[in-house]
Every structure is written in C-alpha cells, then in structure tokens.
C-alpha cells in the first residue's frame, strides 16, 4: 500500500508536467460559463485546441479520432496535473466529449463521425445534451417532445429543460418521442441537431441563486433529416443509455486538497469571534461538525484513490465512487448553512462588500440545493446504489406495459 506512481506513471506525469509548464495559459481563472460571463470562451477554445494538437485532449481515445491513444490512468494523471496548475478551462466541452460525441461514435455512420469528432475534440464545436423535459427529469423516458415523419424529414415540436450550454452550443443530441402508441421506453428516437436550425429557441433559466447556467430549449416545427438519426428508429432509450453510461464511466481524479474545504472553514472560524468573545473555532458543537465533515471529505478522497488504484493496476474500479455526489452535495449544503448560522444576523447579508468572507457561504446556501438535484437527485442516486450496487429490487412500475399516450400525467 502506497501512494506512489508506478515508474511508467511517474514518467508520464513528468512528461505532462513539463508540457504543461511550457504550454499552460498562465492567467486562466477558470470561471464557470453562464450567459452572464462568456469571457472565458476564447481561452477555453484555445486551450482545447492546444491540447488536441499535442494529443492531450481526449487521451483515452484512439489517435485516428483525434485522441491520444492512451490509458484511463494517463487521462487521470493529466487531469490531476492540469488541476494542479490551476487550469480549469474544459467546462464547455465536458458534455460534448463526455456524452454526445461518444454517442455519435457508437451509433453514427463514418461520414458523420468524421464530420463531428475532430472539431469537437479540438474545441471548435460545442455540443449540448437535450434529454430532460418539464415532465421528465428523474424519469427521463417520460419525455413528450414529438418527432413526426414528414417525407424524408422529421418535424420536432416540444420543450427541453436544464440544458447546460445550449446557448453557446453549435450542436446537440436530442431524445424525442417517435411512437406515442408504443410503451414508454420503446417509442423514443435519438437525433443530432444543429442548434441554429429554424425553430430552435433557447431561453436561460433564472435559478433561485440568481445564476443562469441552464436553458430551456423550445422546438417549433424544427426539421431534421432521417440521416441525423443516431441508432435505430424507436431505439432511442438504448442509445440514451450509451450516453449516460459514458457519463458514469468518468472516474474522478482522487485529488483535491486534504480535508476538502473543511480546513479553510476551520481557519476562518479561528478569525471570527462568538458571543462569548472566544473564536468560533472553539465552539464544541461546531468542532464536532468539523470532524464529521473532515472524515466525509477525506473518505471521498480516499475512495477516489481506491478506484484509481484499481485503474492503475489494470483492474475495473468497484462501485464505490457511486457515493460521491450523494455524500458531497448534502455535506456542502450543511457546511454552508452552519457557516451562515455562525455569523448570526450578519449571516443574512449577501452583499459581497459587507458579508463575511465576501458572501461565499450565502452563495453556497443559495446554490447548494441545485447540487442535490442536478445529474441525479439524492433519491435517484440512492435508488441506483440500492439497485445496482446492493442488488435490491426495482420499483413496481405502472408505466412498462401500457402505451405511452395512455399513461397518467398529472398536471
């Protein structure tokens, strides 16, 4: 048991480090991209192109597709070193390269693949994933957006929601209902779509935090060709599983700071005085919570290391990483709420110039509910762990046998 690289890994890390020292942009701040701030987009695209030219963009992908022809472990090492340099410019490409393009590669003809894979790897074209709908979040297969055949074309009408990056993406993959008379999972089809097609309209969603990172996407008589179909007609559910499996295949770096953010909170609490005149860091109840958060953060870090160890030895990691978001999201909310509570009446203030720690914890209180919902709610994640890891039975389903159009829908 050790934390050391194998000789091959160490050599690769040294090579990556040298390359990053020579090539990484120095002033990269890594802001997340919402419609309020797209100032980083040029830097993101430039960095992606630089990485692609050197074979570091999609390290695990074959070289013929613009990848690096490397291993998952090499990909992880690169990400760790990139993070160590403070370079965080991959956000706009994560969905395209992590979900959409793998789906294209698994289902499209050679011509389509040749057209799209290279530009996506080089960051020239950005993709979004159009699955969720107002009536289908956790229940993805409940989507109602319709595609109706009209000659050689399909005509799409409906609405998607929670689409990250739809407002700057050039292309998307969209899951639509092509047979409402079939049972729910059998009447879906996947297409790729040009986001500039007539009838596609993006509207950003105003989140409770005030941020605008997601979109609603409306489809009004949008025409796509049958050649844009990904996979077989009415087989969209199976195609969407390819997409989502690729999302889950990503292994987190097992890196991060020791103790996550808990160290910083502890340091901050030493500088703030409580009602009794003593630093808040001496508050016994707070110290107990700090200990709980610390072992949760560290537990997640060590769990990542266990998965990496399996990868490093050419084995398949176990299911242990499935706990990560479930554990992290609630903890982050709890930390934020506790930090605000400690500030007493000042805790109400969000004003950056007046609030303690420039309002960071107030922002976290307002933003943290999203983390418990996005990418699988706490409840869905618990179902996944229970069913796929522990092998417990699925829910009794009332939607598996009757035609989709006859299913009760509520309001």
């Amino acid at each position: 048991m050790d934390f050391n690289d194998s000789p091959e890994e160490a050599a690769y890390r040294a090579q990556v480090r040298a390359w990053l020292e020579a090539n990484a942009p120095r002033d990269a701040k890594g802001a997340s991209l919402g419609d309020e701030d797209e100032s980083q987009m040029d830097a993101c695209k430039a960095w992606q192109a630089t990485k692609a030219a050197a074979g570091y963009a999609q390290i695990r992908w074959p070289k013929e597709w613009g990848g690096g022809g490397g291993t998952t472990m090499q990909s992880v090492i690169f990400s760790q070193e990139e993070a160590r340099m403070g370079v965080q410019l991959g956000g706009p490409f994560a969905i395209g390269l992590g979900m959409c393009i793998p789906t294209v590669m698994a289902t499209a003809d050679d011509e389509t693949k040749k057209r799209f894979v290279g530009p996506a790897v080089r960051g020239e074209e950005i993709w979004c994933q159009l699955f969720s709908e107002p009536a289908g979040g956790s229940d993805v297969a409940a989507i109602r957006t319709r595609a109706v055949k009209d000659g050689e074309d399909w005509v799409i009408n409906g609405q998607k929601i929670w689409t990250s990056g739809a407002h700057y993406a050039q292309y998307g993959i969209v899951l639509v209902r092509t047979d409402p008379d079939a049972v729910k999972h059998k009447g879906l089809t996947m297409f790729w779509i040009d986001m500039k097609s007539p009838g596609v309209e993006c509207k950003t969603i105003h989140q409770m935090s005030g941020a605008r990172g997601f979109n609603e996407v409306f489809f009004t008589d949008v025409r796509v060709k049958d050649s844009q179909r990904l996979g077989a007609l009415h087989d969209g559910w199976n195609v969407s599983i390819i997409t989502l499996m690729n999302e889950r295949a990503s292994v987190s770096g097992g890196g991060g700071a020791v103790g996550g953010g808990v160290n910083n909170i502890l340091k901050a609490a030493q500088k703030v005085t409580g009602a009794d005149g003593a630093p808040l860091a001496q508050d016994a109840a707070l110290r107990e919570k700090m200990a709980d958060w610390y072992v949760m953060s560290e537990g997640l870090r060590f769990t990542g290391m266990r998965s990496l160890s399996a990868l490093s030895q050419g084995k398949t990691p176990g299911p242990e990483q499935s706990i990560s978001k479930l554990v992290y999201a609630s903890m982050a909310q709890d930390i934020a709420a506790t930090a605000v509570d400690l500030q007493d009446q000042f805790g109400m203030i969000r004003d950056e110039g007046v609030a303690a720690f420039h309002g960071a914890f107030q922002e976290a209180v307002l933003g943290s509910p999203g983390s418990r919902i996005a990418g699988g709610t706490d409840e869905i994640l618990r179902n996944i762990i229970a069913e796929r890891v522990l092998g417990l039975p699925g829910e009794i389903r009332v939607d598996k046998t009757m035609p989709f159009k006859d299913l009760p829908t509520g309001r």
Partner: protein
Amino acid sequence: MNFDFSDEQKALKDEARKFLAAKCPPDRVRKLMEEGSSGHDADLWAAIIEQGWTGAAIPEEHGGLGLGYLELCCIAEELGRAVAPTPFASSVYFFAESVLLAGSDAQKAAYLPKIVTGEIIGTQGSSEKVGPVTAESIDAEVSGGKLSGVKVPVMDGMIATHAVVLAKEGGKPGLFIVDLSADGVSREQLRMMDASRGAAKVSFSNVPAERLGEAGEGITLFDAVNDRAAVLMAFEQVGGADMCLEMGREYALNRFAFGRPIGGYQAIKHKLADMYCKNTLARGNAYYGAWALNTNASELPIAAAGARVSASDAYWNAAKENVQVHGGMGFTWEVDCHLHYRRSQQIGLVAGSARVWKEKLVSRIERRNAA
C-alpha cells in the same frame, strides 16, 4: 497509486474469514453470552493463537510473524465481522502495542513472545470514573514502585494476566506494567452491554508496577497507543458494519410485506444505500489509517482519529439500522442483529468516545495548520 491491500493480504483476509466462519459462528457468540461467562471463548482464543494472529505485527525477533500492520488490519476486519469474543484487541492492539511503542529491550523480550504464544493475555487499564480519561481524571498512583487505585472498566479484566495501567507517579501520569496475579490485585466481573466481551473492575493495593517509557510521559504514550489501537479497531468496525449491511440486504430481499420484498420499498432501499455510503467512507478512512500505521507516518495522529471517527459512525449507523430493517425480528435474542448492536457500542467506547475522538481530530488538524 496503490491504495489497496496486496493479493497476499487479501488472501490472508479470505483465509481468516473462512477460519472464523468455522470457529466463531454467531450461535457460538450468543451461547457464550447466555452462559454469562467472562466474554471469552477459550477454544477460539487457542485456535487464533495457533494461527499466529497474535504475532502478526510483532517482529520475528520477539517471537512474532513480523508480517506487518496491513496484515493485522486484514485480521482485525474479519474479527469485527465475526463479532469474535476474544481478548485479541486488549492483548494485541493495546498491551503489545504499548510494549512495542514504549518498552525497553528487556520489556519487549519479556512480554512480546508470551503475548504471541498466549502465555500472557494483556490489557489496558485507564478509566476510573464516568467521562473521558485525562491527566486529571486518574487517581491511581504509583509510589515506590507499588500501584494503588481502581480501574473500571478493564476490558478482559477477569482473564488478563497483565495490564498496562495509566497511573500517576510523583503527580505526573505514567504507564506501568502490572502482573495481575500479584498480591493486592482484586477483580470483580462487570455486567457489560456487550456481554460477548468481558470486563472487570480491578483494584490495586500496593501492587508491584514497572514503568513503561519515560516518567511523566503517560498521557503522550497513552494517546499514541490509542491511535494505533484506533486504526486496528476501525478495521473491526468496518468489518462489522459491512456484515450489518449484508445482513440487512439479505433480509430485505427475503422478507415480504404487502406482497413484495421489503427491499423494494424506497424507505428500506435508501436506508441501506446510506449505510453503503457511510461504510464506504469509513473504509477509505480506515485504509489511510492502515497506511499511516504501517509506515509510522507523521500523519498517523490525524489518520487514526479520522479512521476512528468515520468507523465509529459507520458501525453504529449500520448496527442500529440493521435492527430496524429486520423489524420485530431484529429485536429478538435469536436473530444476530443485536450482536453487532452491542459490539458497535463496545468498540465505539473503548479507547474513548466519538466526541473525544472528534475533538482530538480537530485539534490535531489545527496543530497541523499552525505548523
């Protein structure tokens, strides 16, 4: 990155699991509790000694196998899973580790080989009253090489032959080795929440005591020994917690209510998923503790406290929720849930409660941050 046990270590763990499944089935643990004995299965203990487990981490020069702490962690996990009613923790994690850490060459030579062979069973005596053990909480005193005082509870106090006792000498705490067969030692068996682990109130009246380590270093050494024991106990806790999860899962798959397995209801599924989360976190923290213990890393104090806090939380959660998943059956004597319920309390309290370890963890992080 190789943050895992080796194939050989995993094989040892498998072997230990098979051995304990044969020698220490739950019925045997329950029977031992029914007999109201001292919480000690002498036959199992003899078989464990024969396996060489007591000497897994004791160097060969002192009669051990000299394998290392990672191997001892593998054994500990299986002992915890089996709720083994033995003085293994007292003798190996507490007594032997005290001698290894602070003993002179002569003391190591005198005690360690006999721990390995089982000729002596060691334990630790620290607590005297309700609340955490501190320099201020102890009244036991050594004067002129003779110990007087009362320690309660002393785990395995009815069967132990020797104890490492925390006592004051010249007003300062020290650690002392005491032969419990000496004149002036009296023992009273205690009724324990976990009746599968015995304990005693042990009184000392002018009993010969030999100091372990430097004078006045008692609390420092006591803390260091408990850190090492905490990592090993964390593996027992992780083993027990995983067993609870397996029991709960098995029951949820086979118990039908309202026409289907209760494991199909989200109330039960989510409970078991949460158990899996806590167990996984505890395993990660325990592995880090194992690494720190095995390499004697400077991170050991934080790693040990982290392993302890996480494992105590996971085992208690798994033990109590496993009872809940089993419903009324889980509250019966015949079903095994209570074995873990009791043991999770016992391991969670020996060497200090969760709140004590949480405070240790945070103060140690503060010291690291300040350094």
